[in-house]
C-alpha cells in the first residue's frame, strides 16, 4: 500500500492492482478506484492548470461537480476524449490520462505568466481589449485567442465506438440511488409498480453508504449497515430495474427523460472491443421521483484554489469509500456541522486534524463528539490566506468581527497538507427546474428548494432541502406514499437517531484585511472568475444575473457552475443590497453533465444518418458510370460521363443527342398522387390556377399550384385516367409537402368534397424518352400501337403492354422535344429501361441526367419551381398569365394575385439573359445591376439558371429582374469579383418558340 492508502474498505478491492499512466508516468491503483482516488493514493494532487491564469489546480471533489481535475484520456489515439472528470472515470488497466491546459508541461507552464499579469485581465477583458486597432484582428488577436482558447484536444479520427439508443416506459422512475432514492424505489416496486432506479455511480448508496458514525443510527444499526441491507433486499425485487453508471441528462415535459448509461467506459481497452460504449435511454415515466441529492459548497476566501483544498465530504469519501487519505495533516474549514463527520473520521484513523469554524459555537452531538476526542476547534474564525504553490502548505486565520463582516485580532498561521472546506449544501434542483418546476428561497440555510406543483413528479431527500438523516428517511417515506397513493410505505415505523445542526451561519464572501482588488477569491474555479470580477461587473452596470454570468463567464465552463452559481448569486445580492430570493437563478439547461456526441447521435451514423431513396433503375445507372445528385432523399443520375468527360463535356454531349436523335431520362422520382372521387375535378379546380372540369379522359394538362399568398408552390402534369380518377405529378422535392397541403385543405376547408388521395410515388417507375427519333423507338417497343399524331396526340395518355407488363404512356414533354413517358409498376422499372435502351440502340439513345434535363428545359424557358422561383414569385411574375384562369371564381391563392403588393409592376419578374460574349457563362445566384456609378449600387435581380447551350451554341440564362417584363433588349451588368459581365435582357424562350419540335 502507498503512504496515502491508509484504510481498507469494501468498495475497493485491494487485492486487484490496476496500472495506469498520468502524464506518461506509470502508477498503480486498485479495482474500484476512480482516476482521482488512484492519483490521490499516490500523493498526486496537481492535475491541471486553470483556464485563464494557468494556476496549478488539484482534485477538489469526488463527483460530477468537479471543476479542476479534468483530463485528456488516451491522448494521440482515435479513442481520445478531452475534459473527462478524473473524479468520475473508473480506473481500468491501461488507462492513459494527461493534464490539460498546460504548455510545455504541468509542472512548468508558460501560461502561468497570466497569473502574474492578472490585475490586467479583469472581467470583460476580451471584450474591452481586442477592440482596436482593427488591423490587429486577423494577424495578432485572433491567432492569440485561438491558441489559448478551448479545453483539451478533439480526436482527429472518426469515433470508432458504437453508441445506442433505447426507448423505455415505466410507472415510476427514481433518479438517484442514495438513501432517499432507495427508499422510494423500494416502496414503488413493492407496490407492483414497474420501477426504474438510475444512479450515476457504479454502486448504490450515495453518501450514506460510507457514513460510518455512531451519531447516525437507523433501526439500531449504523446508517451505512442499515442501507447495505436495504440494497441487498432491493436487488431481489422483480419489477425493479436498477441502472447504475447511468446519469440523467434531461428532464423534459410530460415526464420524458433522457439518461446516459456508460456500458464499457470502465472496462480495460482489450475488453471494450465490439461492445456498445454508451446507451442513451429515452424514458417516458408515469411518475418521476427525483432523489438527486445535494452538492457541497466551497467557501470563498483569498487563494481558495490551491491543490490540496478539497470539499470536506469528498475528503471523507476518499477516506471511507476509497481508503485514501488526501493529507496527513488536515485542517477543516467549515460553516456547518457536516464537516465534523469528516474530522471525526480522520481522527479515528489516527490522522492529524484541526477545525476552523466561522460559527461562534455549536452544541450538536457530532460537534460534541469531535470536542470530546480533543480535536482543536478555532471558533468564530476564518481563513484569510493560503500558501504553497503546487500544493497547500499552510493557512492564515483570523477572528471574525461580531457581525461577521470583518476580521479582527492577529493573523495566526497553521501548517497543513490538506484543507477541507465546507460551505453547506446546495440541493440539486436542476432536474426539477428542467421539467418546468419553480423554486423558493429558504432564508434559514440560504438554499433554493423546489416548489411542489406537479402532479407527476416529486423531489425527495436532500435535493428537496431535507439535510438531516431523520427528515430524509421519514419525509421520503411519507411523500412517496402520498404521491403514489399507497397506504403502507414499509418504512412507517422506522426509528432514526441523528445529530441535529443547531447553529447556522453563512457568509458568501469571507472578509479579509487586504483590499478586495488584491485578493484572489475564486468562485468559478474552471473559468477563473473571482469575487472581484463579479463586483466589477456590478459596478459597470450589469444587474441581471444572466448578464453578470455571461460578462464574467461564471458558471459557463464544462461544470456549468455546479459549485459556483450560488456564491455568485449571494455576492450579487450582498453587493446590491437585495434579498437573494428576489434575484432568481440562472436557467438550468440540459444536459446536467456533458453528453458525448456519440450518445446523442446513437446508431444514426454513416449510412444510417439519413434515408437514401433509389429508383428501381438505380443499379443500371451505377453500372453505366452515372454520377449522382441528391434531390431531397433521392439519388438521381446527374450525368453519365464517358471516357473521363467532365460535367460540362458530358452535358453538352447528352443535350445534343437528346435534340438530334433520342435521349432517355429516369423520371421515377417525380412525386405521384392518385386522386379519386366524384369531386376530383372540382378539387383540382380549387388547387390549380387553371380549369380542369373540361379535361377529357385520356388527356394530360400542366398545372401550377399556388400558396394562399399567391406565390408559386409546385407544378406538374396531371392526367385524367377516368371520369373520377386522376394521376397528379409533383416536383421530386415537393411531393410530400404537396400531399400534406392537399390533405389539409380536404380535411379542414372542404370536408364536403368526395375525394381520396394516395401517394403512389414509389409504386411506379418512369422512363422518359425524348428526341426526334423517340416515336420510332416507341413503335419498336409497342409494335401494335398507332403513334400517329391523330391517334396519340401531344398531352394525351394511353395504356399499352410490353409482353405481360402493363404500361401507361403519357405523351408529354419537359424538353420541348417529341417525348413519351412510360410508366410501369416499380418492380418492372429496370426491365422496361433495358428494353428502351435495346430498342433505342440503332438511334444511339443517350441516357441523360438531371443536369442535361435542366439545360434542355432552360432552352425552352420552362421554369423549375425552387430554382427559378423562391416562394416570392407569382405566376404573373413568371410571365405565366396564360395559366391563371380568369373565369374560375376561386382557387388557392387567387385573391392574393389582386393584392396591391402582388400587382406592383416593379416586382422581380422572369426574363432571359444573353451575355454579350456568347462564351461567357453566368454564375447562378449572381447579382444583376443596371448601373455601377450610383452608390450604393442597387441590386435589381439575380441569375436563377445558367448554361452553355450546345444546341444554340451560346450561353443562356434565366433571371428574375425588377420590372423585367418591360426590359426586353435592355443592357444590364452582372458584376463579379474580378470583372463586370455585360448582358442583354431577352425573351426567356430561347429555342423553338413556335413549339414545332414536339410534333416533329
Amino acid at each position, binding site marked *: 500500500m502507498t503512504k496515502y492508502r491508509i484504510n481498507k474498505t469494501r468498495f475497493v478491492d485491494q487485492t486487484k492492482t490496476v496500472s495506469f499512466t498520468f502524464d506518461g508516468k506509470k502508477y498503480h491503483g486498485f479495482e474500484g478506484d476512480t482516476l482521482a482516488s488512484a492519483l490521490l493514493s499516490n500523493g498526486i494532487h496537481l492535475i491541471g492548470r486553470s483556464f485563464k491564469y494557468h494556476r496549478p489546480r488539484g482534485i477538489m471533489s469526488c463527483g460530477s461537480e468537479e471543476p479542476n481535475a479534468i483530463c485528456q484520456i488516451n491522448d494521440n489515439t482515435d479513442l481520445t476524449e478531452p475534459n473527462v472528470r478524473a473524479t468520475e472515470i473508473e480506473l481500468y488497466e491501461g488507462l492513459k490520462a494527461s493534464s490539460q491546459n498546460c504548455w510545455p508541461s504541468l509542472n512548468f507552464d508558460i501560461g502561468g505568466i497570466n497569473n502574474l499579469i492578472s490585475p490586467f485581465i479583469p472581467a470583460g477583458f476580451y471584450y474591452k481589449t481586442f477592440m482596436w486597432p482593427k488591423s490587429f484582428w486577423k494577424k495578432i488577436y485572433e491567432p492569440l485567442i485561438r491558441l489559448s482558447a478551448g479545453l483539451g484536444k478533439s480526436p482527429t479520427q472518426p469515433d470508432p465506438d458504437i453508441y445506442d439508443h433505447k426507448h423505455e416506459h415505466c410507472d415510476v422512475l427514481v433518479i438517484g440511488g442514495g438513501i432517499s432514492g432507495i427508499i422510494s424505489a423500494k416502496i414503488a416496486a413493492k407496490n407492483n409498480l414497474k420501477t426504474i432506479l438510475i444512479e450515476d455511480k457504479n454502486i448504490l448508496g450515495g453518501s450514506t453508504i460510507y457514513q460510518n458514525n455512531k451519531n447516525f443510527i437507523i433501526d439500531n444499526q449504523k446508517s451505512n449497515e442499515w442501507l447495505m441491507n436495504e440494497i441487498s433486499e432491493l436487488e431481489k425485487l422483480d419489477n425493479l430495474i436498477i441502472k447504475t453508471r447511468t446519469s440523467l441528462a434531461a428532464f423534459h415535459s410530460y415526464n420524458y427523460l433522457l439518461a446516459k448509461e456508460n456500458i464499457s467506459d470502465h472496462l480495460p481497452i482489450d475488453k471494450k472491443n465490439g461492445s456498445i460504449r454508451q446507451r442513451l435511454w429515452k424514458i417516458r415515466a408515469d411518475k418521476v421521483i427525483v432523489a438527486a441529492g445535494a452538492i457541497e459548497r466551497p467557501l470563498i476566501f483569498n487563494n481558495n484554489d490551491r491543490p490540496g483544498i478539497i470539499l470536506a465530504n469528498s475528503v471523507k469519501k476518499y477516506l471511507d469509500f476509497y481508503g485514501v487519505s488526501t493529507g496527513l495533516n488536515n485542517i477543516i474549514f467549515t460553516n456547518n456541522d457536516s464537516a465534523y463527520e469528516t474530522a471525526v473520521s480522520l481522527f479515528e484513523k489516527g490522522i492529524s486534524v484541526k477545525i476552523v469554524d466561522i460559527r461562534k459555537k455549536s452544541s450538536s452531538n457530532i460537534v460534541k463528539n469531535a470536542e470530546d476526542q480533543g480535536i482543536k476547534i478555532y471558533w468564530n474564525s476564518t481563513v484569510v490566506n493560503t500558501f504553497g504553490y503546487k500544493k497547500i502548505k499552510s493557512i492564515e486565520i483570523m477572528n471574525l468581527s461580531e457581525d461577521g463582516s470583518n476580521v479582527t485580532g492577529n493573523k495566526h498561521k497553521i501548517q497543513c497538507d490538506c484543507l477541507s472546506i465546507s460551505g453547506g449544501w446546495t440541493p440539486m434542483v436542476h432536474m426539477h427546474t428542467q421539467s*418546468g418546476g419553480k423554486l423558493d428561497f429558504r432564508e434559514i440555510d440560504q438554499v433554493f428548494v423546489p416548489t411542489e406543483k406537479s402532479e407527476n413528479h416529486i423531489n425527495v431527500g436532500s435535493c428537496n432541502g431535507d439535510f438531516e438523516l431523520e427528515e430524509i428517511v421519514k419525509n421520503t417515506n411519507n411523500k412517496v406514499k402520498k404521491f403514489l397513493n399507497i397506504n403502507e410505505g414499509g418504512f412507517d415505523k422506522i426509528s432514526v437517531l441523528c445529530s441535529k445542526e443547531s447553529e447556522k451561519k453563512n457568509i458568501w464572501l469571507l472578509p479579509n484585511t487586504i483590499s478586495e482588488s488584491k485578493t484572489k477569491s475564486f468562485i468559478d474555479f474552471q473559468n477563473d472568475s473571482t469575487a472581484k470580477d463579479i463586483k466589477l461587473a456590478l459596478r459597470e452596470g450589469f444587474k441581471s444575473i444572466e448578464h453578470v454570468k455571461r460578462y464574467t463567464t461564471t458558471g459557463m465552463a464544462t461544470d456549468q457552475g455546479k459549485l459556483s452559481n450560488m456564491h455568485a448569486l449571494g455576492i450579487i445580492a450582498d453587493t446590491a443590497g437585495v434579498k437573494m430570493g428576489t434575484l432568481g437563478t440562472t436557467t438550468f439547461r440540459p444536459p446536467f453533465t456533458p453528453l458525448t456526441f456519440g450518445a446523442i447521435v446513437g446508431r444514426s451514423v454513416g449510412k444510417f444518418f439519413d434515408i437514401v431513396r433509389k429508383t428501381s433503375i438505380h443499379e443500371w445507372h451505377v453500372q453505366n458510370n452515372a454520377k449522382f445528385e441528391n434531390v431531397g432523399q433521392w439519388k438521381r443520375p446527374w450525368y453519365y460521363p464517358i471516357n473521363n468527360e467532365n460535367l460540362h463535356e458530358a452535358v453538352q454531349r447528352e443535350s445534343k443527342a437528346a435534340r438530334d436523335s433520342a435521349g432517355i431520362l429516369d423520371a421515377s422520382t417525380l412525386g405521384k398522387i392518385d386522386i379519386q372521387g366524384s369531386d376530383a375535378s372540382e378539387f383540382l379546380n380549387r388547387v390549380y390556377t387553371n380549369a380542369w372540369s373540361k379535361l377529357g379522359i385520356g388527356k394530360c394538362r400542366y398545372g401550377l399550384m399556388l400558396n*394562399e399568398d399567391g406565390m408559386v408552390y409546385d407544378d406538374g402534369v396531371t392526367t385524367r385516367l377516368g371520369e373520377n380518377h386522376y394521376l397528379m405529378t409533383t416536383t421530386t422535392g415537393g411531393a410530400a409537402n404537396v400531399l400534406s397541403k392537399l390533405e389539409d385543405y380536404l*380535411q379542414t376547408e372542404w*370536408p364536403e368534397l368526395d375525394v381520396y388521395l394516395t401517394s403512389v410515388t414509389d409504386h411506379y417507375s418512369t422512363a422518359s424518352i425524348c428526341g426526334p427519333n423517340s416515336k420510332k423507338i416507341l413503335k419498336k417497343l409497342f409494335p401494335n400501337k398507332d403513334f400517329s399524331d391523330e391517334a396519340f396526340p401531344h398531352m394525351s395518355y394511353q395504356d399499352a403492354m410490353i409482353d405481360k407488363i402493363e404500361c401507361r404512356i403519357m405523351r408529354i414533354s419537359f424538353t420541348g422535344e417529341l417525348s413519351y413517358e412510360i410508366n410501369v409498376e416499380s418492380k418492372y422499372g429496370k426491365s422496361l429501361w433495358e428494353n428502351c435502351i435495346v430498342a433505342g440502340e440503332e438511334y444511339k439513345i443517350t441516357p441523360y441526367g438531371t443536369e442535361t434535363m435542366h439545360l434542355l428545359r432552360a432552352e425552352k424557358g420552362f421554369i423549375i419551381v425552387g430554382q427559378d422561383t423562391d416562394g416570392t414569385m407569382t405566376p404573373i411574375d413568371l410571365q405565366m398569365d396564360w395559366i391563371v384562369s380568369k373565369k374560375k371564381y376561386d382557387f388557392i391563392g387567387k385573391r392574393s394575385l389582386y393584392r396591391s403588393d402582388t400587382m406592383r409592376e416593379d416586382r422581380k419578374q422572369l426574363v432571359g439573359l444573353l451575355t454579350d460574349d456568347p462564351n461567357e457563362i453566368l454564375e447562378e445566384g449572381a447579382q444583376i445591376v443596371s448601373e455601377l456609378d450610383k452608390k450604393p449600387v442597387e441590386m435589381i435581380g439575380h441569375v436563377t439558371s445558367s448554361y452553355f447551350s450546345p444546341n444554340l451554341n451560346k450561353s443562356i440564362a434565366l433571371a428574375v429582374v425588377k420590372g423585367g417584363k418591360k426590359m426586353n433588349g435592355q443592357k444590364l451588368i452582372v458584376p463579379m469579383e474580378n470583372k463586370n459581365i455585360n448582358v442583354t435582357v431577352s425573351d426567356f424562350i430561347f429555342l423553338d418558340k413556335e413549339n414545332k419540335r414536339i410534333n416533329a
Partner: protein
Amino acid sequence: MFVINCPYCGERDQSEFSCGGEAHIVRPKQPTELSDDEWAEYLFMRKNIKGVQFERWNHAHGCRKWFNMVRDTSNDKIHAVYKMGEKPPVI
C-alpha cells in the same frame, strides 16, 4: 416532448405530430369580395398567446388526420383535443 391524445389513434409521442398554427381561422367563402385589408387579416394575422391557445395539429406520422387542440403555451398542458368540425370546448 408532449404526449398527444390523437382523437383517432389515442396517446402518441409528440414526434409523430406536426403543429399547423392557430385553429378556427375559416377560409373566406367569397375571397374576391374582400378588401385587401380583410384578406390580409385572414392570410397573415395570427395570435401567439402566452397561455391557453387553440391550435391545429396533424398526426403526420400516424393516421394523417388533422384535429384541434387546446394547449397552454406557458406550461404545455393540453386541456382538450377534438376533431375538425367539432365545437371548441369552453376552457
